[in-house]
């Protein structure tokens, strides 16, 4: 459990340095369900939702609940080798104002070491709006999974999951960068059930003048496979 607190503290520290910019804090539950439809093909459904609790842009800086958005995703994946998988996906986003559609393409590569493992994910996506041009993004995520008891992750044991993702996006010739750093404590109940609890620290508007945004999400993820 001590790893969890260390990760919480280190992320909070990063956050404290940047009080003068926009800061948002909230809850971010997510759940995914994966099942195989044949030897090489699988389907994954995922639902994730952001619930804001604090936003420094509000006049009276107080806690106030706000549903930011909910994403519903479905992916069709094909196994290329035991270590490489490609996916195409679709996302429907529910949010205030306009709900959006997104198409997603990704390649994921698994790298195994003696005890830990690393997942590389390269993703491109396109978001479609009613009255705006298409938003294109390209992103790369690196996620490490480190067992906390012994070298093998056995059912009932826990792990540490750390990831960082860099996103480049462009919409009608305006571009921006976003970074997402996460640290989570994982419960490996068995190979079909995993829970990750941690923090997701997102910063964006790097390339937009006089604006910088921090978002800190308390994340709770459940990964289920059949």
């Amino acid at each position, binding site marked *: 459990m001590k790893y969890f607190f260390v990760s919480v503290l280190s992320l909070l520290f990063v956050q404290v340095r940047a009080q003068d910019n926009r800061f948002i804090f909230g*809850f971010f*539950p997510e759940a*995914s369900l*994966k099942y195989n439809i044949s030897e*090489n093909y699988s389907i*994954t459904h*995922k639902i994730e939702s952001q619930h804001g609790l604090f936003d420094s842009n509000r006049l009276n800086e107080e806690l106030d609940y706000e549903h930011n958005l909910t994403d519903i*995703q479905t*992916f069709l*994946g094909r*196994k290329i*080798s*035991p*270590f490489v*998988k490609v*996916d195409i996906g679709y996302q429907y986003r529910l949010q205030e104002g306009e709900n959006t559609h997104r198409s997603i393409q*990704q390649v*994921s590569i*698994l790298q*195994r070491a*003696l005890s830990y*493992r*690393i*997942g590389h*994910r390269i993703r491109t996506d396109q978001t479609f709006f009613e009255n705006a041009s298409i938003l294109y993004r390209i992103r790369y995520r690196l*996620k490490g*999974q480190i067992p906390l*008891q*012994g*070298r*093998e*992750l*056995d*059912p*009932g*044991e*826990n792990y540490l*999951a750390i990831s960082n993702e860099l996103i480049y996006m462009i919409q009608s010739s305006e571009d921006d960068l976003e970074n997402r750093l996460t640290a989570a404590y*994982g*419960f*490996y*109940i068995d*190979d*079909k059930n*995993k*829970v*990750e*609890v941690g923090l997701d620290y997102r910063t964006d508007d790097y390339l937009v003048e006089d604006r910088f945004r921090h978002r800190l999400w308390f994340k*709770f*993820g459940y*990964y289920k*496979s059949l």
Partner: protein
Amino acid sequence: MYKYSLLIVFIFGFNLCSAQEKDEVEERIKKSEVHPKAIAWLKDAYEKRRKVKWYYQTDGKEEAFEAKLKHKKHLHSVEFNTDGIVQNIEVLIKEKEMDRTVFGIITDYMNTTYNKFSFSKIQIQYTGSEDDLEDVIDENEFEEISISYEIEYYGKTDTQNELWEGLFDQDGKLIVKRIVKIKNTDNLDY
């Protein structure tokens, strides 16, 4: 606030789940939890050794202690039974360190069995009596020792595209192989 207290209950619920009984275990243990005979054997064989990591492992039926240490730039895994009697020594080696003839035979097998293959982990395993295994380490003597190779490799056929673990005898002949099940990567992919 009620909503969040529910969330916390939920999290701790999972925590309890994960503390339940489990069959397969492999965990780091303290030196003091290891049978003294195992520690004594390791001291005799490896003499001036560096850091040793001890593990306890069980598949639900058989239990074993395992010592992991570095020796002459190689990672050694020494397995002991619960009475502290050494069972075998596994040494992690590189492709080029394998006996050329044996490596040739194994490569031939790979070429004829798979369209595509690559080695990911090679371990040479020494099995024998306590005294003979000690001689392997401190005298570099291999009398009465049976040698085998445990190789993890990727192999693709027309119908299978898997990671395998094969056990080969000292001449490079396949004894047994199985598919290595890679743990779900859903949390790394989505």
